[in-house]
């Protein structure tokens, strides 16, 4: 019977590597990772940029700390940060007071307004800040800015208590953390 080869069969035969003695040798294929490297480099640059843009971080945690949305276009500056979540008040990453159902216990607020533990911590931070700026600057160099990040469901009474405590610790200007709804 005559061996009939189609055009396709002939082409296939041409492309396949020729068999050598001693078995099949696969074609040499270099794994090209250049495009992967490009993609990874772009991701890395984007992440590095978003990592270093804000002076402070506000962790958004569901059922714990979700800051409200706002139309604001103002950006934050570095200052003492106070986080009021559903369970705690945190100053510069350190847990200070326990919050239960949007309130602090009466033992934490002897006069009904000032949160004692918070005031002590803020006094300490203020003292350190003044010392760091040097004797020449002294109290005049102290800016007294406080950054408050509170959960959306926190009642105003607690935020007001925190603000009053800050005022008594000589932090008199406040900026509330919000999620921007428009760019800028």
């Amino acid at each position, binding site marked *: 019977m005559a061996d009939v080869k189609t055009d396709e069969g002939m082409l296939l035969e041409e492309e396949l590597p020729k068999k050598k003695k001693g078995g099949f040798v696969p074609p040499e294929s270099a794994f090209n990772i250049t495009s992967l490297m490009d993609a990874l*480099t772009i991701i890395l640059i984007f*992440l590095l940029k978003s990592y270093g843009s804000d002076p402070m971080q506000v962790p958004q945690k569901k059922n714990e700390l979700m800051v409200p949305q706002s139309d604001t276009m103002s950006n934050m500056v570095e200052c003492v940060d106070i986080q009021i979540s559903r369970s705690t008040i945190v100053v510069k990453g350190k847990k200070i007071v326990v919050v239960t159902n949007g309130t602090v216990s009466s033992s934490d607020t002897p006069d009904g307004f000032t949160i004692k533990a918070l005031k002590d911590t803020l006094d300490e931070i203020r003292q350190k800040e003044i010392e760091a700026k040097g004797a020449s600057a002294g109290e005049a160099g102290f800016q007294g800015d406080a950054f408050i990040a509170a959960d959306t*469901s926190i009642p*105003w009474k607690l935020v007001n208590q925190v603000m009053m405590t800050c005022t008594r610790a000589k932090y008199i200007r406040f900026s509330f953390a919000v*999620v921007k709804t428009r760019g800028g």
Partner: protein
Amino acid sequence: MARKKMAVEEKLEDINLMPIMNLLCLLIPFLLLSAQFIQIGIVLVDTPRQSKSQSKPDENQKSLGLEVIIKQDGYDVKTKSGGSACPQRAASNQVCIPVTHAGGKKVYNAVALRKLLYDKFYKPHYKNNSLDKSKDAPKPAGAFSDWGKVTIVPEDTILYETVIQTLDAARELPPEAKNEIQDIKGGTLACVFKKKPGDKEWQLEGNCMFPLVAVGR
């Protein structure tokens, strides 16, 4: 000659990218975990105690004394000089802008509040008033000594989210201002606070309605 050239080409090898790949594969998960994909901004507020201690107003100038009270049943707006902004509703013991209910939740109408502040207080007076703080600038007749200031008084049980909405409503101009106000700077209605590192004071930029907000009693 040709043989020599071929020998050189054979020596060239690809750069070993594996160490860089390893480094990238470690860095990317770390950065992904710590990255923040939402933009955090700030809303600046003051306390009424501090605003009182600021420079004494000129005795010849009148003050507006604008106040927004956030009550359980809605927004109430009044001025120290003229009383309630909605006298008819106040006469029947009702708030200016009542809350609505949607999906079992109370909704404060911040859009209506912005419009009321704009129509009743900003639009009739903005020509005679300026947020420019320079003391030497001549102040026209009808200028308020506390222009740009508003005191927001929330009740204790009001949610923090509602207070932020109210601050937004007082600070930003409504969309119709773009056509109605002649001296809109830059063509946008954004009101921005900026502060350079080391500066003590915040600078106001853009177009604002009542940006100097004091919260509390």
